[in-house]
């Protein structure tokens, strides 16, 4: 491997490590409480996307509109269940940032596995890190390939 390619590899590795390990700028933790009423019916939640700030104390009040539904927050492991007329509640501190699917945890019909919502705990650093890595890897791959001229057709090909 040529020195130039090695330099590209090392550069990409260092920048990649920085993207993953260094703290990203973002909004400070949001103290306080947030209560969101989530209405559930076959096969969606309303609102379908819930945005909260990091470190907010979140209470989700699940109201089932047509039948028994559950609500499970991926990544937090919090869950509750509601029947029509009797809401369920779950509380947790949003101490992890990113996107967390909300799933129905009680079989409610044929599309039950696809009854999903989203909890976004901002700032959504995992997304930005992934996008930054994509840009870095794309540029790095092109640079790596460009760092050595291609052989002519038939020359040294396996």
């Amino acid at each position, binding site marked *: 491997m040529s020195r130039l390619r090695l330099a590209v590899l090392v550069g990409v590795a260092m920048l990649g490590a920085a993207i993953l390990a260094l703290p990203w700028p973002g909004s400070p933790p949001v103290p306080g409480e947030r209560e969101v009423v989530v209405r559930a019916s076959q096969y969606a939640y309303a609102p379908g996307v819930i945005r909260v700030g990091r470190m907010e104390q979140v209470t989700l009040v699940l109201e089932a509109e047509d039948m028994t539904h559950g609500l499970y927050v991926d990544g937090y*492991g919090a869950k509750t269940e509601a029947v029509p007329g009797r809401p369920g509640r779950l509380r947790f501190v949003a101490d992890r940032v990113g996107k967390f699917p909300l799933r129905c945890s009680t079989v409610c019909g044929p599309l039950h596995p696809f009854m999903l919502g989203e909890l976004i705990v901002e700032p959504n650093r995992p997304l930005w890190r992934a996008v930054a890595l*994509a840009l870095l890897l*794309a540029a790095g791959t092109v640079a790596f*390939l460009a760092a050595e*001229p*291609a052989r002519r057709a038939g020359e040294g090909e396996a």
Partner: protein
Amino acid sequence: MKPAAAPPPTPTAGWELTRYRPIRALLARRSLNWAAMTAALGGLLLAILAGLLGTAAGSANFGIVFVWIVWWGLLMTLLLPLGGRLWCLVCPIPAAGEWLQRGALVDPPSAGPTPLLQIAPARSAAAAGGGMGRSWPRRWQGIWLQNAGFLAVALFSTVILSRPAVTGGLLLAFLLAALVLAAIFEHRSFCRYVCPVGGFIGLYALISPLELRVRDPLVCQGHRTKDCALGSAAGYGCPWLLTPWSLERNAACGLCGECFRTCPKENVAVRLRWPGRDLLVASAWRLDEAYKACIMLSSAAIYPLVLLGPWGRLKAWANLETLSGFAAYAAAFLLLSLGLLPGLHLALAAVVRRAAGLAGVSLGRLFVALAYPLIPLGLAAWVAFTLAFVFANAAYALPVLSDPFGWGWDLFGTAGVAWRPLLPGWAPRLQALVLLLGLVGSIVAADGVLRRLGDGRRSLAGLAAAALLLTAETIGFLWLYLGALA
């Protein structure tokens, strides 16, 4: 003057697995393949029965859970990325037809294959067994039928995934279609030209690290009887209608190993190699595969939008709850798969043609060639979708094992195992990792394709243009899984 014969394919580098006696012994035993296929057939029949007779609750039905979660999960995350067409080695759908054609379950009769069912004399040399043995019509060759079949299944996938009876009916239809076609056409014509799953497995097998090829093509040149293709007393001819001595790509090779068993020269090898070599076989670049690459990439975006997104109305449309809604969904699906995405890549081809100085290459040829770099990213996108789906629903497998029909049984004591997602919180990281690997693979493939077209010359401008579009597509997929969809 006779045209010069095509040069034999160059033996590929790689680590030969069949140099090891235990692996040769495994491959030589047709009975192992038969046993695995029979077990899979048992599972398939159970899935069909459960689908047609069992509970309508999909998460409690063997047909839904073991086909669309367990089998699909294993196929997309392990078998296909690591082994290419490894599933085809044990797929039960063509089993009955193949046994009827051969007139035997496992090994051929010592005097040669005896047809159990022969309606008319075989029409082609490759059909050494029962059935009519007709050649597949030339105009239906290629994977256009498979593209159409996949699109049809994909359009109705929400209905299929959520209704056990529909899954059961679909699997039964595949089983019967394979049997009927095996009675009419030679060998694995169903697998080669009709099976909707085989279409994309073959495409993604192009980047598999596993390959089956002849060791030395010159040995084949001197061998007249071509037992690997036509069969002999030692074994059957290639059921995939291939000529192993000129095999250059994984797309149509079902890894059955029949050529390995039949070759009297011991000239067939199974190797591990660098993934992606087959993408650069320029002589095999085809429009039907190019479209397949576009269809698979667009489907990999539509599936998570519909099935994993927060929009109940979109799910209702895809679930055929209203005809007008389904029509709108189907129109959007087809427009994206057959129009917008291919159109975007045609535009890329035009840009690359100018940027890379490839005026001597037609736009159509360039469009086809540049579709192949979509394959690593497309497979990565499907793995990412599968991870989300499987991690969340794999827990249903245990209860369903004990109660496959949802009738209240508890055969193995696992019927009461409660649902919980597998490794919660890990799916997004793995999805991002897989997509980033796919992006790198696609850019490397684009470089290889452009060098093939440019006689080995590298064009930085052309590569940068391709990399830009591939990166944008990757970021789109990252947004699907890690970002807010509304």
